[in-house]
């Protein structure tokens, strides 16, 4: 039919024309104007939805299942009615945060969830492969069909060499077309203009073919339908209801509704490439109109194909081409070929650009940016690296699709291949729609839902296809893995009788949604997630034109920002972008860079420019590396709250401190009182000591003066007076010794000479040394001693001092002429006890402890003032306690005072029962 060279030439001329349109558009844009800033162009660009599937596949499906091709276009129409709400919200958010792909969108919505972005990219990549392979297949068979005779191509299969060649050309074309350079905003106006043009060609070609068939071959619709109605198998194509078609109809509607929103290329043209949010309003009816028009002739062409090729040897997917060829209209065939080429190339280009953007920004960059030795901040010529990554991604996408086509999908019809991809991207629906309208949707839910849905999808559809393609045991389909019936990929969980796509849609979306909702409700999102959820869900309350990103509070110089941009965009693009910014802000490029500190708007603009190249999350990290930021976000607010809490905590600490201070003050006050008391006691003590010292001194001085001043004093008087002087001097010496003893005891400098001693002997010695005094005072002494020696260890001199002190006190308080003193020694369990009892005035109960305090003197005396320093008992107490004993005044005596003290017994002393000591008059002289 047509010469190979002619067709090739046509194809390349057409591609060159597209390239020219794109090129002119980009040039035009650099002058500050835009061809695509137009609602009609926007609507046409959305028609990238109509691919080779629409162009060839719809007819193919209609030829066997009638209207079942139509839900794929009715669903988008139903959703397009809602675009002025849903799509505009997505666009507003995407512009506000400079989001350039669905992966970007979802990862930012769920709190900069890098992993989620990567997962979305992966699902999109894997899910879209069949779809792209479908386009390759269509271009391939279109090409071969026109080169060779149609009746030789009954199966529509193509040779390997043709499709591989097609793939190569497509890679080159896509790279030239969509990834020629890096665009800072990730918008490709040239590409959009070209695909809008291609949409026109598609529609014109389809309508031309339809008109040719309906009116050129037949006499209008009535004639065609009448002729077809003669054949029942054809007439039933315009009815529904066979074999579960209604439920399939419903699910296909649903799938297509979601796909129009979620397919990467639709997100690209509808959201990323959108120039003006208001264009959506026009598109919400113009795009459905386009769909309606391109579908009008589908069923008629399918019927004509069935009528023209009654033997069924021709693949219905090729009717669009085989009919004009068969009817010998070369021009229509040529137009249809260009239309099919347009449908396939526009899809491939946009899809590859969208995918390479996602792969680069959401998969590769987040990894690169975290690898220390790659050091993106310092690197030079990064724009080249980025370009390379994107171009490689395009090649990867297309060659993988080619491989998929070769291995799996060549045996399937165009529509059944495309639906697999529809269901794959439909898995994004719960996370996206939930993210837009449900504030409690969180990252965990999104990850759970997407992975669950993707797993079910992969198991039921691609895996099922691979089994049918013979890669795995066929028994997996008929009996289920391991014979588990309800795990069969074509009838999961016992969903019998439905088409694979129906049950796959049902289970994957149901489980996905349940996992998303459940995961969101059962986990607590981070602070950042809650903030993002609030911003996304409430996005429509932002102004349409406020495209501000999160505000930067820090500072950077314009030069720093320029260098940062140059690393990713290259020198020229950076200069252009900054010049544009300068112009729009009524300043010059030089002035912009000369500023000491970049204004907040420029920092934001930088982040936005970078977002286009490396994705919003990475861009934010990059800008943050330059800007010394003090973010006033939720974090800052939380920090403030923390600070407040710290202040409260600090206040509590202060309160505690002041309580402690109060306590210390109280302690100090009581200590002060005690000190005052001690001071008073010390005063009294000194006063007492002074008194006691002055008294003997007075006598000594007086008699000395008398002796000196009185000549001729009788010798008898002289002797008497000198005797007094000597006695008083001794008294003075004794007093001084006591004071020194006391000082030694208090300061711990006393020398101790512990030795075994017998208490009875000690008492005898003490009484003996006081013998003269006792006799003078006519005091009767009784002793009660055990018969066996009571052995203790102690310092003899000190213990004797104690005993003498107690005895002389007793003597002092005894009534004259009628005094009586009892001294007794007793064994207790581990101690020996010595008691000294007198028949004096006794000691009031309240003073029984006080008498042992230093500086104390028992005040009330019956006869004679208390002699002594007030140190005697205090010294005794100190000595006894040093020996490990106690000293005290025994209670409950009807007359006199009973002083006692204990000393630990020596261990070897046998403990004998107490013996009543006999009444032994101590003084035989009396």
């Amino acid at each position: 039919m047509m010469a190979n060279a002619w067709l090739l030439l046509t194809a390349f001329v057409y591609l060159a024309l597209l390239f020219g349109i794109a090129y002119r558009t980009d040039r035009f844009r650099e002058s500050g104007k835009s061809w695509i800033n137009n609602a009609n162009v926007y609507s046409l660009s959305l028609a990238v939805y109509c691919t080779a599937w629409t162009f060839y596949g719809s007819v193919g499906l209609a030829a066997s299942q009638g209207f079942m091709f139509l839900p794929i276009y009715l669903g988008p129409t139903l959703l397009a009615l809602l675009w002025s709400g849903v799509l505009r919200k997505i666009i507003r958010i995407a512009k506000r945060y400079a989001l350039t792909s669905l992966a970007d969108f979802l990862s930012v919505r769920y709190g900069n969830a890098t992993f989620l972005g990567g997962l979305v990219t992966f699902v999109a990549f894997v899910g879209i492969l069949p779809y792209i392979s479908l386009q390759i297949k269509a271009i391939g068979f279109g090409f071969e069909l026109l080169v060779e005779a149609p009746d030789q191509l009954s199966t529509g299969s193509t040779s390997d060499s043709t499709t591989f060649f097609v793939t190569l050309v497509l890679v080159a074309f896509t790279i030239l077309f969509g990834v020629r350079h890096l665009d800072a905003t990730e918008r490709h106006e040239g590409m959009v203009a070209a695909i809008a043009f291609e949409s026109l060609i598609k529609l014109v070609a389809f309508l031309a073919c339809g008109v040719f068939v309906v009116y050129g071959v037949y006499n209008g619709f009535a004639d065609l339908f009448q002729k077809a109605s003669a054949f029942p198998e054809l007439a039933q194509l315009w009815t529904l209801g066979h074999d579960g078609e209604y439920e399939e109809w419903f699910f296909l509607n649903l799938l297509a509704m979601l796909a129009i929103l979620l397919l990467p290329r639709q997100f690209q043209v509808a959201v990323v490439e959108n120039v003006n949010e208001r264009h959506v309003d026009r598109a919400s009816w113009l795009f459905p109109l386009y769909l309606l028009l391109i579908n009008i002739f589908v069923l008629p062409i399918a019927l004509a194909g069935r009528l023209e090729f009654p033997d069924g040897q021709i693949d219905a997917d090729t009717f669009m081409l085989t009919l004009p060829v068969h009817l010998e209209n070369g021009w229509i065939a040529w137009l249809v070929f260009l239309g099919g080429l347009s449908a396939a190339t526009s899809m491939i280009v946009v899809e590859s650009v969208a995918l390479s953007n996602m792969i680069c920004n959401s998969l590769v960059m987040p990894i690169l940016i975290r690898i220390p030795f790659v050091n993106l901040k310092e690197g030079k010529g990064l724009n080249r690296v980025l370009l390379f990554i994107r171009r490689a991604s395009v090649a990867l996408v297309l060659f993988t699709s080619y491989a998929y086509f070769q291995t799996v999908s060549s045996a399937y019809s165009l529509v059944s291949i495309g639906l697999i991809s529809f269901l794959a991207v439909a898995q994004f629906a719960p996370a996206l729609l939930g993210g837009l309208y449900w504030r409690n949707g969180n990252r965990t839910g999104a990850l759970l839902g997407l992975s669950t849905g993707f797993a079910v999808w992969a198991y039921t559809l691609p895996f099922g296809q691979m089994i049918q393609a013979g890669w795995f045991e066929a028994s997996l389909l008929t009996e289920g893995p391991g014979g588990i019936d309800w795990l069969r990929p074509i009838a999961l969980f016992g969903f019998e009788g439905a088409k694979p796509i129906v049950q796959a849609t049902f289970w994957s979306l149901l489980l996905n949604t349940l996992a998303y909702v459940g995961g969101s409700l059962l986990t607590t999102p981070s602070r950042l997630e809650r903030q993002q959820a609030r911003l996304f869900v409430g996005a429509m309350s932002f102004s349409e034109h406020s495209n501000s990103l999160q505000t930067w509070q820090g500072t950077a110089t314009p030069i720093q920002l320029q260098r940062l941009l140059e690393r990713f965009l290259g020198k020229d693009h950076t200069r252009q972008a900054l010049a544009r910014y300068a112009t729009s802000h009524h300043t010059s490029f030089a002035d912009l860079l000369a500023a000491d500190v970049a204004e907040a708007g420029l920092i934001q603009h930088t982040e936005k420019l970078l977002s286009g190249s490396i994705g919003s999350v990475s861009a934010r990290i990059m800008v943050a590396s330059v800007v010394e930021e003090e973010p006033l976000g939720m974090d800052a607010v939380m920090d403030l709250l923390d600070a407040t809490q710290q202040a409260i905590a600090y206040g509590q600490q202060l309160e505690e401190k002041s309580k402690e201070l109060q306590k210390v003050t109280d302690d100090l006050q009581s200590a002060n009182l005690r000190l005052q008391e001690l001071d008073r006691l010390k005063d009294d003590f000194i006063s007492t000591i002074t008194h006691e010292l002055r008294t003997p001194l007075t006598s000594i001085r007086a008699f000395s003066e008398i002796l000196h001043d009185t000549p001729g004093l009788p010798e008898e008087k002289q002797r008497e007076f000198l005797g007094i002087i000597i006695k008083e001097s001794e008294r003075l010496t004794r007093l001084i010794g006591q004071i020194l003893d006391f000082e030694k005891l208090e300061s711990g400098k006393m020398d101790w000479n512990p030795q075994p001693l017998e208490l009875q002997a000690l008492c005898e010695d003490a009484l003996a040394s006081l013998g003269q005094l006792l006799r003078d005072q006519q005091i009767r002494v009784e002793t009660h001693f055990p018969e066996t020696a009571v052995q203790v260890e102690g310092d003899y001199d000190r213990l004797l001092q104690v005993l003498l002190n107690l005895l002389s006190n007793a003597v002092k308080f005894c009534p004259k002429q009628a005094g009586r003193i009892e001294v007794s020694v007793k064994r207790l369990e581990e101690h020996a006890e010595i008691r000294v009892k007198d028949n004096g005035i006794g000691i009031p109960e309240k003073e029984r402890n006080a008498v042992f305090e230093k500086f104390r003197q028992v005040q009330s005396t019956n006869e004679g003032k208390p002699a002594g320093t007030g140190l005697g008992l205090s010294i005794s107490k100190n000595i006894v306690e040093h020996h490990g004993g106690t000293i005290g005044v025994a209670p409950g005596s009807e007359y006199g005072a009973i002083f006692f003290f204990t000393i630990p017994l020596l261990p070897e002393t046998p403990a004998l029962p107490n013996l009543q000591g006999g009444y032994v008059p101590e003084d035989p002289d009396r």
Partner: protein
Amino acid sequence: MRFQRLTGMSLTGGLVLNYPVISVFSHLDFSGTFPPLYLFLFGVWGVLIGLTAFLMERHGRVAAPPEDGS
């Protein structure tokens, strides 16, 4: 208000363009040019598009500022 109407239209369209309504028009016989289901599907579709266009463009002329120059 406009978005509520559109939502209503979308839901109604979804109902009308599904079982059981479409099953009413699903029969072989037809009189005139088109089979009944063909007429019904494209008819409802066209009406939806027309209504939307009416709502959008009227609204656009009344409320929205002139579009940016193209």
